[in-house]
């Protein structure tokens, strides 16, 4: 927190000093570092094991308590800005149905204990393969080990411990980044800083690593656009839109991964940059991609505090855009699954329920009965999106959907 305040002061000074593009900086996220959280993780693991031991010795059947991770157990408050875990818990009592999972949970905790101690890590896939040495208790599919990992994370999340703290990292990498941004990474062996200039990636892009808390940033950009599809990202990158508009482009590739969410969050929070989401105009783009980017998801409610971007806003494509930009004949009808998704969001999703503007938008889409893709602007020429749509929209960024 101290570091952030410093930056704010610095940038404030610079802003008044010159009209040149301001350079904003943010260092490594310190809050996860130090012995504090690591010790908390180790203590938590031992505490669970001791509880099991004590209950068992006393002739009882031990149970593990973890928060329920689904949309019905989250609350949304505009002030907090993300989905917060509710008070529902599930109890896993040792019985015939749970004995295997129970054993697997303890053995994965043991693995985490070793990794935290040795400062090593395992991908979720590797963790799955480690279990192959457990004989009968091995996992048959990675889906099973992922689920147990989520359970462990959920159990410890109340103490601020995440999967990353426990040294389990996701297999998939994050999204692609281009623009007026320099990422400062560290050489894992020497600890020397490595600078990656995201404006010097040629036709390629910087890839968000699976863990981002150790990164530092420098930027002169004014805002960030989070883009759903690789196609649109390529078009904007090819025509150097980020240079024209002085922004950072992030490709999410569907629902953004934890690392991408955390990356954008750190950029937006540390560098005080607004984030504009540019996704397809359909229930999936709004209710899954954008909603998860902004407030997190029900299934990962225990980590939303860090892994979402509360100050993101929804640039488009909106149903109103379809009308305003003459895309009516470039749409597709909503599929039954789309309609169900939109109706579910209106009925059950605390985020959409909190904003009348969103309710109106979803209803408008349902009434129109159509969806439109980002690429639909090509109807008016391949670069219509760069020359017309984006400039017009960004001029009125304050009117973006919350």
């Amino acid at each position, binding site marked *: 927190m101290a570091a952030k305040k410093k930056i704010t002061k610095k940038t404030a000074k610079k802003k008044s000093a010159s009209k040149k593009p301001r350079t904003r900086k943010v260092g490594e996220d310190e809050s996860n570092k130090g012995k504090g959280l690591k010790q908390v993780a180790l203590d938590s*693991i*031992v505490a669970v*094991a*001791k509880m*099991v*031991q004590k209950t*068992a*010795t006393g*002739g*009882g*059947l031990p149970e593990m308590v973890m928060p329920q991770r689904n949309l019905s157990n989250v609350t949304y408050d505009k002030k907090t800005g993300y989905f917060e875990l509710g008070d529902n818990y599930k109890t896993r009592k*040792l*019985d*015939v149905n749970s*004995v*295997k999972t*129970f*054993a*697997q*949970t*303890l*053995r994965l*905790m*043991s693995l985490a*204990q070793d990794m935290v101690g040795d400062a090593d890590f395992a991908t979720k896939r590797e963790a799955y393969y480690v279990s192959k040495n*457990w*004989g*009968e*208790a091995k996992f048959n599919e990675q889906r099973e080990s992922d689920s147990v990992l989520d359970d462990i994370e959920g159990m410890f999340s109340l103490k601020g411990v995440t999967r990353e703290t426990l040294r389990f990292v996701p297999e998939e990498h994050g999204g692609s980044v281009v623009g007026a941004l320099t990422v400062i990474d560290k050489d894992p062996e020497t600890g020397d800083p490595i600078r990656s200039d995201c404006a010097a990636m040629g036709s390629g892009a910087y890839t968000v690593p699976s863990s981002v808390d150790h990164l530092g940033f420098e930027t002169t950009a004014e805002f960030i656009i989070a883009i759903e599809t690789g196609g649109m990202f390529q078009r904007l990158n090819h025509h150097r839109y980020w240079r024209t508009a002085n922004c950072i482009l992030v490709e999410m590739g569907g629902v953004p991964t934890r690392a991408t969410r955390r990356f954008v969050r750190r950029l937006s929070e540390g560098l005080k940059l607004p984030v504009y989401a540019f996704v397809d105009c359909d229930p999936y783009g709004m209710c899954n991609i954008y909603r998860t980017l902004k407030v997190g998801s029900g299934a990962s409610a225990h980590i939303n505090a860090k892994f979402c971007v509360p100050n993101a806003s929804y640039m488009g494509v909106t149903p109103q855009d379809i009308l305003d930009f003459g895309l009516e004949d470039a749409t597709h009808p909503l599929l039954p699954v789309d309609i169900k998704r939109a109706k579910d969001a209106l009925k059950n999703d605390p985020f959409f329920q909190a904003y009348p503007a969103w309710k109106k938008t979803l209803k408008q889409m349902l009434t129109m009965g159509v969806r439109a893709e980002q690429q639909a602007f090509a109807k008016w020429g391949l670069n219509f999106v760069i020359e017309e749509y984006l400039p017009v929209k960004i001029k009125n960024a304050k009117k973006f959907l919350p």
Partner: protein
Amino acid sequence: MRVESIHRKGQNHPVAATKHLTAEQMAKNQKEISVSEFFAKNRHLLGFDNKQKALLTTIKEAVDNSLDACEEAGIAPDLLIEIHQVEEDRFRVVIEDNGPGIVKEQIQNIFGKLLYGSKFHSRRQSRGQQGIGISAALLYAQMTTGKGAKIISKTTRGKPQSLTLQMDSAKNKPMITKEAVLKEWHLKHGTRFEVELEATYKRGLRSVDDYIKQTAVSNPHATLHYLTPDDEEPRIYERAVKVVPDRPAEIKPHPYGVELGELIRMLRETNSRWLVGFLQEEFCRVGRKKALEIIKEAGLGEKSYPTRIAREEADALYRSIQKTKISAPPTTCLSPIGEKRITEGLMKETDADFYAVATRPPSVYRGNPFQIEVGIAWAKPGGDQLEVDKRGRIKKTKKRRGTVDTENLLGNADEPVRLLRFANRVPLLSQQSGCGFTKAVTQTSWKSYGLQQPKGSMPLGSAVILVHMASVWVPFTSEAKEAIAPYDEILKEVKRALQDAGRKLGAHIRKDKRVANEFEKRSYIEKYLPHVGIGLQEILGITDEAREEIVETLGDSLETARNI
């Protein structure tokens, strides 16, 4: 073919070349046909269709007679059945019993005369019915080998008589070809029947082996020594119970079973003077009150002379009988095998895991009392058996092995259930598909009792279904006594008995599945619980002893929490 026949019809009918006969001329050719001649030409009606069946029928008739004789005399049957191969298709068959023996004068009639016997006229339950079987066997042997039968019989008081008999098939009369009084015989009383016939010996379904095995099931009070041509030593089917079934009582006809024609005959022949007396005297289950009720309903007078009842009045009386509620005939005339004995019989001859038996109360078809019994032997598919001990732990036990015969009545789990049909304890081997019992089994819904069943077929499973009908008169579909006529009353009773036994089987199969399920769950615990211990040991660094103790304590807690 059709075109040809139409063509023929179109032609004028050809005039017969032979001369027409007068009634007088015809009369010269009209003469009595001897029953034995008739059956010599129609041997299939008696079960001598082919060589294999001839062997079976011969043995079956002799064994049935022997068992009947023993039971009537209250003797626990001890039977010897031997088949010796003489030539390729010629066999010598011996059936010897420890029955009361036959007095010398009757031997020739019983064995050498068709339609001679004690059982045809009596309303008493017995294996034999018509008095045809054993003499037909002799006739068949005589026709195929030219030799007669040798009979040795001894009563307790008499001397052992040895007779060689042939039959004069034209006159239906026995002919004694050799006769002797033996100085000594190895039995105090009993009868030995020995005959040589053209036959084929085969194993498997509907074989003599099959018959003997099933007879052992339905007659657990009998011991059978059975020597086949293939064996050196006889197979011994030991009796499981010592007590001989009570001799069934003879009964009067039940009113419901008498048809109009028979009622008229009875009215004509009775010695009773008044109608009310006639009804009470000639029928069972009719007292004075019931008799008056019937007469009133028929609009007749209680003091009418039975001999003078006209056809129309008899008709009214007949209909009145059908309307009146009359209790079922007495069951003393029936000798069911009994639930305990059916279980004993099935248990000693099948290697099953579960036995269910059901007995129906006696019922009536056409005035004939009958009683249906059903037994089911079921083997758990897979072999090993799970048992729950007193402490609630489940253990695997080895499957029991068969005691007497290697021939197993139980098939595989995916095969149709084996149906054993019995009438008055006699196994019915042939014509299963045409039998009323089969119909009742296929019409019962076995799915609700835990067995699979293709639509309209026998259920599947490693199981035996035994159906027994005890009756003073069993309605066979033919004289070969191979299938039961599907009377509605009989079908209904068989189905109900099947349902009763089926419910017990269903409950067992469900419990069995539950135990298997529980066993699986408990092995699940045994499989994974050690890993809870390993996890704890790794995290906490506890000793091996401490780990094992925790696993054991947890195991006990889980077992206690899961009481069956």
